[in-house]
């Protein structure tokens, strides 16, 4: 019975989130565009599938992933596990190696399952006529998030300034933008925003807050935030890099083939 109540609760919450979007779509369609939507039945069925899909997805996450993931983030950042006995000295940053590895692994795996990234990747593959592979893009983004969150936890441990990392990241992105193929630029910038939603945010936030409470001399007010920023900046570099490597390899095979011909 409680299962069913959970289902109804999540359904009501999801519908409540969708209502403003539906109101805008229907309002503009009826009063401004005044055109019939082609295949209206399919669109309605699609919306029902999306809502039901999200409800099952969220219920499953709440049941299987979030409780254990948050517990694990807490256990891994627990002073006892980290071997912090003295609450005034921070210890060497290498003593937190498990935390970085966990940050990397959880960043990668949650991003692969992120529904909004799947949506953008499908669309990118469609409109580029296959030139951008959906799975390649998703793996590049996931690696970016993984590296970003691992570096983000390192920053919390060492207590260095968030601003310097972000500014350095921006400089790298600007340099990459100059050299990367133009077809990828807009998509790479987009991938920064889509990585952090339903699956990633709750787990990453738990990790950041847990860590900033355990590390001696950390201030949750200043240091607990910032992981999401890393998770949105690094995928941009990863996707630009992915396109650069692709272009470099294509050029190399081209040169190689030309040498063969000579």
């Amino acid at each position, binding site marked *: 019975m409680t299962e069913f109540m959970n289902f109804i609760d999540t359904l009501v919450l999801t519908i409540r989130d969708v209502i403003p979007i539906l109101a805008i779509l229907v309002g503009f369609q009826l009063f401004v565009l005044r055109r019939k939507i082609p*295949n209206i039945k399919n669109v309605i069925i*699609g919306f029902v599938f999306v809502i039901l899909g999200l409800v099952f*997805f969220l219920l*499953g996450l709440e049941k299987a992933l979030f409780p254990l993931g948050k517990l694990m983030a807490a256990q891994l950042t627990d002073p006892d596990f980290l071997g912090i006995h003295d609450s005034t000295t921070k210890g060497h940053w290498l003593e937190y190696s498990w935390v970085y590895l966990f940050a990397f692994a959880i960043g990668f795996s949650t991003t692969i*399952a992120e529904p909004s990234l799947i949506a953008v990747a499908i669309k990118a593959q469609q409109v580029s006529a296959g030139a951008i592979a959906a799975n390649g893009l998703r793996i590049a983004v996931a690696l970016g998030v993984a590296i970003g969150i691992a570096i983000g936890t390192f920053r919390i441990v060492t207590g260095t300034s*968030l601003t310097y990392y972000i500014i350095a990241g921006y400089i790298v992105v600007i340099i990459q933008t100059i050299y990367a193929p133009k077809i990828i630029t807009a998509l790479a910038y987009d991938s920064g925003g889509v990585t952090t939603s339903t699956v990633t945010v709750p787990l990453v936030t738990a990790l950041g807050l847990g860590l900033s409470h355990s590390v001696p001399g950390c201030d949750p*007010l200043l240091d607990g935030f910032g992981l999401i920023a890393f998770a949105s900046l690094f995928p941009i570099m990863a996707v630009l890099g992915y396109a650069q490597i692709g272009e470099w390899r294509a050029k190399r095979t081209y040169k190689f083939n030309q040498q063969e011909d000579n």
Partner: protein
Amino acid sequence: MNDFTQRVKSLKKIGYKVAVLQLFKHLSKTLKESFRDLIPIFAVIAFFQILVLQQPIPNIGDMITGFLLVVVGLSLFIYGLETGLFPIGENMAKDFARKGSLPWILLFAFALGFGTTVAEPALIAVADEAASVAAGGGKIKNTPEALQDYSSKLRFTVALSVGFAILLGVIRIIKGWPVQYLIIGGYFGVVVMTYFAPEWIIGIAYDSGGVTTSTITVPLVTALGVGLASTIKGRNPVTDGFGLIAFASLSPMMFVMGFGMIMS
């Protein structure tokens, strides 16, 4: 392109049973892909729980049901995406482009950005968290009214910034401006504002860019951009159609830092 339409047509032609069979075939393919997408998460959890923390996995039954629910949910979501969300987003973009009325499409862009963000659960959570952190640091009074007031002002600021971002992004697509100049300009804005904004707002501001874009907003906004860029002459759907999400994650940073400067 639209599998579902073809399927409904074929349903009338070749009969109900065969069409339903095809539908199940499609769904089972999506199910397999979703299953594959979720394996990494569970591998990570098993590895850390068993080998690193050396503890048994609690409620293994719950884990398995939860895992199955996530797989089914993801498959349904992706199926609905391709039959519902993408087509409506692209159709509306095309109709707006054909109508050729700039004020209406800009109003639509703003409404979509503002309306989908103001009620976003992730944003509500972050805004409440930011309010309690600000109260703990003595930046605001620690009363429920003050917290509520702070949190809703912050949410309103972020929603306003996302509405503005989608509006600007649509203007960019219509005019055909290259995306990198605006983004790099935005980066300079963020860096300059970081020097003037109070220190306690910076982490929250940087994070706020990431939480604004929800699972339903992203496909719709992407379809809007791609639909516009493929209808307007001279625009490329790949280089011009994407980029709206990037604006929606950059502009909240500046707006929230501005909010912090006004509040202190």
